[in-house]
């Protein structure tokens, strides 16, 4: 146990800032998950692996001498087609089936991706160096890498862009209509099959952006996918489907929680505490609802 957090207030500030910047990234991933959950009623366990794959795209650009920040543009374009491909191969066969079938199918995709990435990119922990330098605040008591600020900024831009796109564009309206009532949308001439493919593609593209940002701010590794899935699931269930400010807030809250868990419990319990928090949140909500004789659904 390390109580430095309470003795040195600057560490608290550091952890909060780190957590908020990290949480904005989580919120971006969770936004993608909420999108496909709301529209297609699918929980994608492979979400985190799509993030990591997006990260590797940026990392490879860095290896070939292109600045990894360009990955923010390139990675979503590639990931969009990856997402549509996954949809055409697997997801369209499970979309109207039992939810557990889709969980298991995407779990299979997750294992497949994990291993293919392990073969293709090796099992090393890598990061793409952006060379952005660091910012020092409060007499160097708080150290913020500029890449984190950059990634939070880009995430916000993409999230706002997507919200506007969903409101204004034709496809966005079609997606929202399908989410409300797929059958009615079909009757009114919306090609739901196309909408589903586009939704999954958009989600993958968001994962691509987030992955590229993670590869320049943190590290990526083929087996690091599942925690991102769990984090985004957690953010969505705390915020509720279709509650975008809630997603942003709970994303940041999770980021701050993680930074403090890291300081107080130690780094080896960081991932474990995230998973335990998920269990605790679900159990808490279960007891809260059971007072009204309801249950989570």
């Amino acid at each position, binding site marked *: 146990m390390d109580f430095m957090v309470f003795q040195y207030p600057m560490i608290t500030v550091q952890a909060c800032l780190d957590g908020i910047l990290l949480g904005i990234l989580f919120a971006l991933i969770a936004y993608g998950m909420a999108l496909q959950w709301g529209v297609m009623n699918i*929980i994608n366990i492979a979400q985190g692996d799509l993030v990591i794959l997006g990260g590797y795209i940026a990392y490879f650009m860095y290896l070939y001498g292109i600045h990894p920040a360009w990955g923010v543009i390139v990675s979503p374009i590639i990931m969009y087609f990856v997402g549509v491909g996954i949809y055409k191969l*697997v997801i369209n*066969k*499970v979309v109207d*089936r039992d*939810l*557990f*079938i889709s*969980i*298991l*199918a995407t*779990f*299979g*995709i*997750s*294992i*497949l*991706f*994990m*291993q*293919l990435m*392990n*073969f293709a990119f090796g099992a090393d922990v890598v990061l793409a160096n952006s060379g952005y330098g660091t910012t020092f605040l409060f007499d160097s008591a708080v150290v913020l890498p500029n890449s984190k600020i950059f990634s939070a900024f880009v995430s916000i831009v993409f999230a706002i862009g997507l919200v506007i796109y969903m409101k204004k564009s034709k496809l966005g309206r079609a997606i929202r209509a399908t989410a409300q009532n797929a059958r009615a949308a079909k009757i009114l001439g919306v090609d739901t099959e196309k909408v589903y493919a586009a939704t999954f593609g958009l989600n993958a593209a968001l994962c691509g952006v987030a992955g590229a940002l993670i590869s320049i701010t943190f590290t990526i590794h083929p087996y690091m996918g*599942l925690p991102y899935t*769990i984090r985004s*699931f957690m953010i969505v*269930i705390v915020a509720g489907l279709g509650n975008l400010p809630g997603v942003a807030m709970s994303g940041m809250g999770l980021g701050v929680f993680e930074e403090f868990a890291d300081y107080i419990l*130690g780094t*080896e*319990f960081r*991932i*474990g505490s995230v*998973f*335990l928090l*998920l*269990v605790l949140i*679900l*159990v808490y909500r*279960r*007891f809260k609802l*059971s007072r009204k004789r309801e*249950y*989570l*659904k």
Partner: protein
Amino acid sequence: MNKNVILYATILIFGLAAPFVFPAFKVQLSILCVLIVLATTWNIQGGEMGYNTFGNILFYGLGMYLCASVQVGMFFPLAEWTESGGEKTFVHTPTQFFQGMAAGLVVAAVVPTIVAGLIGYAILGLRGHYFAICTLGLGVAAGEISGGIEIIGAGQGFTTPPFPNVGGLEARGEFFYFLSFGALVLTFIAVRAIYSTRFRLILNAIRDNEDKAEAMGIETMKYKIIGWMVSAFFCGLAGGIMGGLVGYIDSTDVAFDGREMGVFMVLMAILGGKGTLWGPVIGATVFHIFKEGFWTFFLGWQYVALGVLIVVIVIYFPEGIMGWLREKYPERFGEVVDEADRKAQVELK
């Protein structure tokens, strides 16, 4: 009934003779027994009760750690044992080994049962995919946290006591084979006994419509918890045996191995057919044969194959082998089929 007796006798004789008929496959056969136990117990939740859990791996891993810890801790200081790692400073005498194993297996079975009872009330109140994700989180959290605890080896793993030097390698294989076969027989008898009572009907009622079952006056939560405790008991037992068999426990790769064992048990039950007594047994056997073939010939690509296999089974074969047989030979399952109705259905297709 008579046919059943012959069937069970054949299987029992085959099971008892197997290590002597195929001496080279003793370890594989032991693992098969453990896999069948896991698939059968998963089926109590996933198949009969409709609660698709990824969390039974928690009890399996818990049993594994507990069995090994008790086996060591009864005679030697546990912390020094794990610190010494692979180099053995303490050696179990044969008596100590078997005593430790017996006590360890009892603890490995009982403690997970209690844990299941304690967390059952909280976790089993969740439904559908929330339950699935929550149990997935539980399994991974257990793996991550046990990987940070020093006394059971933390990240570097825990070496279980080596088999004492009586009878050499042959005796070790036979010991673990009969242990796991015994666990299998015990599980099968217990599950079969449970399935022949009202308990199974209650579980099926929960699967089909839990609210209605509750409205009919069934205390669903009680039965859900009991079902989970039965699963936990046998999962813990299987874990304890597997720990001794493998000889080395790692928190995320052996004990709380959600990526392998945790998915295997789901997959085997689905492959064989959910909600049947024999489905998981058949599924586990087919899966294990396939897996061993694949693991040997395509070394390195096994997880790729596993991922593809999950997707293919789930999408194209969700009813499993028993479901397929049931559709093909409904008479054998005691279903009355109207010939005219069947013809009409064929024409419709």
